[in-house]
């Protein structure tokens, strides 16, 4: 247990001034501008927006600068900032079918209507350090070809007529759970699980997703589709009564198609896991969809045999701000607590020694 301490004000002030100085670094190196972070370290910005659960690239870039590149610290800053703002309301659900596609791939359908485009990806690079980036070489312009502007339906809509893939059914009468307003309760419905996963730690979800692939709650996944691009966010203010386009939001969506499930009423069909994340983050969207599917265990009457299927375990530990808060609080002064433990262990040792002495003298007597 933590007991409050006082004192140390001067040391704390000086430590923070030292931090600011170290953050700036050597003065003969140009200071980094948030705009540079926003545009050139975009994927770090995307991660901070996703796990900070706040879409605002400028703010995320500033948080990364303030946090000296520590992304969990930046996420913490963004989470703290959001608590200072009033909430106007909730948007209409984003329509990812009308995304301005920047990347779209499928591992299951070679000839996807609307086509597969690689977009800006690390895939198929050789992962060799590029020393030209150090030298600041001039880049050729990207290639351009005629854009077809075809419709790009979600892959899961394609096999619809055969019913080979389970359908998600909209239920707009149902309340949408919000874990920022009410504490999580178990069992949690899928809306709450998806919200928790969308803001959950990428590393934690990656490891859990990986564990399902290695056999801890296997789901036999295929990437039905991954798409990244901009969608328009719409909000209906009460005073206007019509949908106001707020602007575009970049998101990554992953449709994971998993092995069959059927019942007496429903013939076998592929099941699905879903991932949706702010910004360009395929690893996170894929991990989220693997874990989403694993967490649907109850729904499909499967046994909970692995960590990724245990919703209380996953949802209680996927938030890195909560996790870092509890882990890092251990470094705060715990003097009172530790004093009590010291006292206890001394007493136990004294009792132990006394017992031992007693036994020794008994043994001695017996021997004599």
């Amino acid at each position, binding site marked *: 247990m933590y007991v409050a301490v006082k004192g140390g004000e001067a040391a704390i002030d000086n430590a923070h001034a030292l931090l600011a100085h170290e953050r700036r670094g050597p003065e003969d190196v140009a200071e980094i501008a948030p705009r540079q972070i926003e545009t050139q370290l975009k994927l770090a910005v995307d991660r901070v927006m996703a796990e900070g659960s706040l879409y605002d690239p400028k703010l995320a870039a500033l948080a990364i600068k303030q946090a000296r590149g520590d992304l969990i610290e930046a996420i913490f800053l963004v989470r703290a900032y959001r608590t200072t703002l009033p909430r*106007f309301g*909730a*948007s209409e659900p984003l329509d990812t079918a009308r995304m*301005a596609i920047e990347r779209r791939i499928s591992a299951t359908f070679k000839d996807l209507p609307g086509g597969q485009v690689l977009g800006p990806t690390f895939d198929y690079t050789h992962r060799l350090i590029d020393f030209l980036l150090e030298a600041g070489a001039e880049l050729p312009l990207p290639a351009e070809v005629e854009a077809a502007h075809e419709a790009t339906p979600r892959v899961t809509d394609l096999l619809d007529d055969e019913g080979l893939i389970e359908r*998600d059914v909209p239920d707009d009468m149902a309340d949408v759970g919000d874990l920022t307003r009410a504490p999580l309760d178990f069992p949690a419905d899928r809306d709450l699980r998806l919200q928790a996963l969308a803001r959950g730690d990428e590393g934690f979800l990656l490891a859990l997703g990986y564990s399902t692939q290695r056999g801890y709650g296997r789901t036999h996944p295929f990437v039905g589709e991954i798409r990244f691009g901009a969608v328009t966010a719409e909000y209906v*203010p009460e005073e206007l009564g019509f949908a106001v386009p707020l602007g*575009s939001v970049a998101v990554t969506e992953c449709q994971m198609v998993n092995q069959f499930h059927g019942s007496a009423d429903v013939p076998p069909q592929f099941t699905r896991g879903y991932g949706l994340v702010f910004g360009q983050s395929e690893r996170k969207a894929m991990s989220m969809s693997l874990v989403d599917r694993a967490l649907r265990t109850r729904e499909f009457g499967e046994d909970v045999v692995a960590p990724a299927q245990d919703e209380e375990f996953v949802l209680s530990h996927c938030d890195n701000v909560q996790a870092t808060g509890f882990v890092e609080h251990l470094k705060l002064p715990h003097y009172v607590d530790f004093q009590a433990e010291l006292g206890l262990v001394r007493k136990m040792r004294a009792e132990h020694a006394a017992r031992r002495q007693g036994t020794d003298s008994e043994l001695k007597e017996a021997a004599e």
Partner: protein
Amino acid sequence: MTSSISHAVRPKTEGYLVLRRQALMALLAEATKDEICQILSDIGAGALAAAAVDLRRPESGLVMLRGRAGGDGRAFNLGEATVTRAAIRLPDGRTGFAYQLGRDSEKARISAILDALCQGDEHVAVERAARTVRQRVAAEAETKARRVAATKVDFFTMVRGED
């Protein structure tokens, strides 16, 4: 990105006017503050704009962005976005509103003024002045689409051996 609006217009609003306002709002959301100021100055509405009073002072807040499970299923809360809103009234009584991603109060307030103006005769001038921004946004989107199209991929499945 220009936006097409999926929503059925609610009966209490006049359909055509709503579509016009939505189209302008979509454009202003993509425009920079400088571009929006330029539109206001191009239509010579500086004096009118100066006389606008705040119905609600520009304010930054949050809108919870929702997604749907599987893209088309049950709605869930994806995460919030910063949104700035403004509401003004012109001396002639017209009111204008703005709700935009981000935290730029000045941009939101001028956008609200343009929303009010586009509900009257000035809408032709507003739309003409906005054409430059519309072209800039469309050209950027087209360049991006052409670059993305150049990464279109056709994978061929190799024929396996006689196994």
